[in-house]
């Protein structure tokens, strides 16, 4: 009979059942000490340089020295941030001959940073020359880790001319050293009026037991935390750890009372569309785009207690292969006509105030429904907010130290994960 596994003596079995002494023990002990040394030897180098705000003046020159146009740009962005037919990009290509590869690969800031961090840390290209990132924890992490290229403002003349002054001095990037805004947006509440017949006006409506199992919230801890604090009447900007814990307890109510269906990233809009949720935390422009593309009738409101305002920004990763074309594309989006075209589709706040006038002029050339809807957008406070509208809106909580930020994360993350 040919040898089969059942017939072979099994040294493994013997080893497990009999005592072995001497050399084995010595080897084991030395193995353990080697393990100890190995454990201590592993470390992860940080690239961080927190506290460094503006880079040295020659850093800009050093970065851009010798970089030339390669006639292509790989652009990483979020879904629902551009007309799928990409008219603005086509125009750019027609005028400059630079090909743009537009990929909607960013769904949430946390995962995006975690995904590209190892590669940027190793000085490796991430496959993209331009990305759109939100101001917040991860923006700071990108900046402090040195992963963002310092911008050469001599290549951004249109930005200098057309951008609203408020966007030139944002707290998270004063002087636009590393970024220029793409669009600004508001986090509020979206709901389906077919399923929810009463008007929705307050954050507290997201806690209404009448909507049991049909409420959605964001999985991003910054979005979640802000709403948790605002519903309790707390101001996120100056909140303390106790405020965070109170907000966390309030958020946990949604889970314990089974009010919440799930925590979502950008996909909340699909869930709303499919009827998985009837009312959800939402980003202002998404709802309108969904209504236009799918013929739905969802409503978006800024709650009485307040909403969150954030800015998504263009940034160039430090290992970008085609930065010159990337920065040209950045500047292109500050042209009035381009900004108007983009804002008319995505319905987010544009950093170019002259776009409003442009939109009204464009509307005058149209007729009927098209004209009416474009005029609505031109007047919409969600695309061109007035000073007074900003009063109710809060930014994400800014963290002074990494320890503070970790504490915040550790308070809110378990809510999303469990």
């Amino acid at each position, binding site marked *: 009979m040919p040898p089969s*596994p*059942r017939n072979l003596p*099994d040294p*493994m*079995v013997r080893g*497990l*059942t009999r005592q072995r002494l001497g050399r084995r023990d010595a080897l084991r002990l030395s193995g353990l000490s080697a*393990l100890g040394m*190995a*454990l*201590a*030897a*592993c*470390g*992860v*180098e*940080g*690239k*961080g340089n*927190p506290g460094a705000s503006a880079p040295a003046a020659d850093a800009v020159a050093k970065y851009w020295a010798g970089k030339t146009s390669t006639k292509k740009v790989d652009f990483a962005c979020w879904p629902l941030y551009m007309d799928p037919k990409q008219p603005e990009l086509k125009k750019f290509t027609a005028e400059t001959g630079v090909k743009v590869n537009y990929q909607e690969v960013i769904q*949430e800031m*946390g*995962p995006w*940073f*975690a*995904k590209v*961090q190892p590669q940027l840390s190793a000085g490796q290209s991430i496959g993209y020359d331009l990305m759109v990132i939100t101001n917040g924890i991860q923006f700071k*992490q990108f900046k*402090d*880790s040195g992963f963002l290229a310092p911008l050469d403002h001599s290549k951004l003349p249109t930005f200098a001319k057309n951008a609203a002054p408020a966007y030139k001095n944002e707290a998270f990037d004063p002087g636009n050293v590393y970024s220029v805004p793409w669009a600004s947006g508001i986090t509020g509440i979206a709901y389906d009026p077919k399923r929810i017949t009463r008007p929705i006006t307050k954050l507290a409506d997201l806690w209404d037991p009448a909507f049991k*199992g*049909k409420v959605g919230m964001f999985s991003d801890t910054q979005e979640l935390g802000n709403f948790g604090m605002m519903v309790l009447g707390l101001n996120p900007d100056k909140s303390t750890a106790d405020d965070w814990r109170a907000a966390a307890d309030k958020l946990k109510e949604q*889970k314990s009372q*089974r009010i*919440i*269906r*799930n*925590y979502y990233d950008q996909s909340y809009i699909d869930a709303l569309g*499919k*009827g*998985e949720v009837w009312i959800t935390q939402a980003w202002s422009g998404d709802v309108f785009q969904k209504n236009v593309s799918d013929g739905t009738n969802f409503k978006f409101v800024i709650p009485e207690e307040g909403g969150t305002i954030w800015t998504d920004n263009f940034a160039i990763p430090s290992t970008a292969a085609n930065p010159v074309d990337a920065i040209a594309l950045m500047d292109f989006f500050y042209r009035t006509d381009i900004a108007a075209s983009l804002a008319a589709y995505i319905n987010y706040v544009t950093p170019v105030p002259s776009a409003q006038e442009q939109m009204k002029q464009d509307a005058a050339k149209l007729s009927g429904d098209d004209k009416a809807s474009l005029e609505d957008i031109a007047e919409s406070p969600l695309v061109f907010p007035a000073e007074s509208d900003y009063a109710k809106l809060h930014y994400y909580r800014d963290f002074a130290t*990494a*320890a503070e*930020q*970790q504490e915040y*994360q*550790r308070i809110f*993350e*378990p809510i*999303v*994960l*469990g």
Partner: protein
Amino acid sequence: MSPVRRVLAPYFLILPGGLWLLLFFVVPMVTMLSLSLQEGDIVNGYAFTGHWQTYLDAITAYEEQLVRSLIYGALATIALIVIAFPVAYWIAFYGGRHKPTYLFLLLLPFFVSFVLRTISWRQILTDDGFVLGPLKDIGLLGSSFHVLGTPFAVIAGLVYNFLPFMVLPVYVALERIDPRVVEAARDLYADPATAFRKVILPLALPGVFAGVLMTFVPASSDYVNSAVLGSSSTTMIGQVIQAQYLTNSDYPTASALSFTLMAVLLIGVFAYARALGTEDVMKVAAR
């Protein structure tokens, strides 16, 4: 071959593969252990300080998910045994000439990527999709009835994805049963039920045990099924670990949880092996 070469030959053969496994399986485990004991943050780097409190913090924060994963894994495994056994039994005893065909048919769906299959299930089970929608329209189900997002959906997904890993070992064990043994039982006046209970079942048990080994570990550490078919109330520890690595960049917590999960499962496997006797484990491994 000279005697020296004969002695050294196996070592040379093992060397390249063994080195690869050492570098990319064993060493990463050490790195992970090391990272779990480090402190710092992603921007400024981590340094080894032997900070074991991370384990306590992580486990207290997520023990619900850990326990839930083990429960889902156990439920899925039990369901698998119940569902797979009759199939394996039928093919082994009644399959006749067509045994390979039936086994092929069972394995056929696995030529499609499992991510795609799980997403297809989500499409089938959508709240208002082509299965639930009509049922709701005719009033058989309430309008807020949903399958997705429930523990049932997640466990069903686990059972679906791991079915062959239970059917095949059980089949192999049943197939090896010498039919003359069953015949002998019959000759001794055993009715079919007793013959099954006293002869077939015990002989099939090694296959069942092998199947359990092959399904409990991956089922408990799965995260795709829960992410696609579940909701935040069904979060499994796999999702937590994945989120800590790939959303929060919180490497120490993530590594601590990962190590804990592995330790729990390893202890389970070895306790299980002890209960059967080590030889069966090695038999399973040798297969």
